[in-house]
């Protein structure tokens, strides 16, 4: 059969390619470009290959920051997810109370990152901050500029305060979507409250929770403004997370090559963790035989 081959239609994807190029490829390629070169001035540069990557991966300060970063993200997830679900469960479902509680819960989400940091910076001050002053009055020597434990606890608390509402809102909408008949059937089946949660509510929340956990992981892994304003990464480097290390390197020290390499590593870690998590959850959901064939 003679077919006229006409491939002109390929031109139609050109706008899409342009869009992707500007949104993703070009900015990223700039970083890739710097990550494999050593740039002295606009006219002098050397190709370094993977050297910057090796240096970065072996830098003990960055390794420590990476560990702190993981510890932080896992800590806040472990607190925010159960807490968010709990809040969503006790939020009123109808009437003016529902609207009022919804607004109150949402409030922290509307505050810009820098402002959150500032609010907590003042809140925790020993002389004029309610929390700092209050704790000291109670006899606890609270000081986030001296005690790493205090600094850590405060940052975690701040993040929980700022972002638990997101999980709560997502779960609230998920809970609202469960048809009444499920609860009625459960009552007739004489299910306990726990069984209702375990076998109706939690399974129906899986999808929103996946989104919530992914968002919170990515967000918290990139956290910058709040700890920077609150503790400046201290005391010492006890609350210096990855973003801050990177900024210090790129802006403070003008080490463009290493920081470009480091940016790419950073990006790949987030991508990898998110992908692994998402795939694992979706795989577990899809496979009907894993638990069936016993």
């Amino acid at each position, binding site marked *: 059969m003679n077919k006229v081959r006409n491939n002109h239609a390929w031109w139609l994807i050109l706008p899409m390619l342009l869009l992707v190029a500007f949104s993703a490829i070009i900015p990223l390629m700039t970083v890739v470009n710097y990550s494999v070169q050593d740039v002295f001035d606009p006219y002098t540069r050397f190709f370094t290959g993977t050297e910057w990557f090796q240096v970065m991966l072996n830098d003990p300060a960055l390794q420590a920051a990476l560990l702190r970063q993981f510890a932080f993200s896992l800590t806040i997830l472990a607190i925010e997810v159960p807490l968010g679900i709990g809040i969503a469960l006790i939020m009123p479902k109808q009437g003016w109370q529902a609207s009022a509680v919804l607004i109150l819960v949402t409030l922290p989400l509307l505050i810009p990152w820098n402002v959150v940091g500032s609010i907590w910076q003042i809140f925790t001050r020993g002389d004029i901050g309610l929390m700092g002053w209050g704790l000291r009055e109670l006899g606890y020597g609270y000081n986030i500029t001296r005690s790493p434990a205090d600094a850590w606890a405060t940052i975690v608390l701040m993040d929980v305060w700022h972002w638990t509402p997101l999980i709560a809102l997502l779960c609230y909408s998920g809970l609202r979507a469960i048809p009444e*008949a499920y609860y*009625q*059937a459960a*009552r*007739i*089946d004489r299910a306990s409250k726990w069984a209702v949660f375990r076998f109706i509510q939690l*399974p*129906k929340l899986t999808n929103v929770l996946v989104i919530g956990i992914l968002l919170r992981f990515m967000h918290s892994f990139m956290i910058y403004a709040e700890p920077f304003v609150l503790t400046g990464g201290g005391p010492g480097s006890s609350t210096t997370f990855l973003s801050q290390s990177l900024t210090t390197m790129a802006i403070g020290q003008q080490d463009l090559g290493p920081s470009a390499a480091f940016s790419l590593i950073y990006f790949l870690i987030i991508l990898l963790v998110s992908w692994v998590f998402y795939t694992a959850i979706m795989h577990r959901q899809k496979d*009907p035989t894993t638990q*069936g064939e016993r």
Partner: protein
Amino acid sequence: MAEITLKSLAHTYVAKPQSPQDYAIREMTHVWHQGGAYALLGPSGCGKSTLLNIISGLLEPSEGEVLFDGQVVNALPPEARNIAQVFQFPVIYDTMTVYDNLAFPLRNVNTPEQRVRERVTEVADVLELGALLKQKAKNLTADEKQKVSMGRGLVRDDVSAILFDEPLTVIDPQLKWKLRRKLKEIHQRFGITMVYVTHDQLEASTFADKIAVMYEGQVVQFGTPRELFEVPAHTFVGYFIGSPGMNFLEVTVRGRDLYSGDTRIPLDEGLVSAAARSGSNNIKLGIRPEFIDVMHEPGAETLEVEVNRVQDLGTYSIVSCHLGQTPLKVRVEEGQHVEGPRCHVRFVPERVGLYVDEYRVELGQ
């Protein structure tokens, strides 16, 4: 095992009801006997689901009492009533296997695993779910899911009644009759009282021994499918049951005769005098399309009608015609030929019902 009695029951969703229209269920007294297969038939919004939820305890009635075997259970929650309910949309526990789904109501009351296995196997057998027991319930088809929902009601040996709230709505038509047969079989085998809510008269009459027809929050008739067809107690039952529904002619009493418009309707004397005695100005005659004969010649009892349309339905035809201003439908058997524009019809006298204020008046009372 239980006999369910509804005593002066009424329910409203309005805080301060003013008129009968505010009631979803108007005051009624009704008994569902142990072991019966009942249908609750009516159009959407007539209160049948409300009534079902009151029986199961999901709703507390605003007035009156619900009694199980003479015991008032108004205040008892559904979990304490030993009742199972199957909903319009299948409710299954997604993350569990079919086996665990069926075992769920038993495990909730700490039944020994040995007993759970016996019951689940038995019920799965009856419902033909045996091969699916190890599968996740989430991946079943709609009719399989609905069978699992029913199964959860059946596994409990303390269940005294199963309530069905339009359970076959989401099932494919070709599977509907199969499931209906299954239900009938289960009813015969276990002897459990079953109340089946539906708006489909065919579903109701194939499933139930007795049907309660609901209209505007009231049970307007409770009877066998045959009774509903032959002697509808209310004009609504006449309309709703049968296809097409009953013909109703508004008539007025003039002297010793009944007139529809200006046409005199030849009728038994007893019926005419009963109509005259009622003194009401809402008098209707009800006659089913099946009981109107088409005559070749005009006679003493015939009426002349204008033929509008003849609809051939295979083994019979439906003739749409007008008697004066009133539309009539007449069912004509295969082979009988009706030609317009006018023809003569005769009402079979003993099949004509008298309806005063929408309710049937039994003659000879």
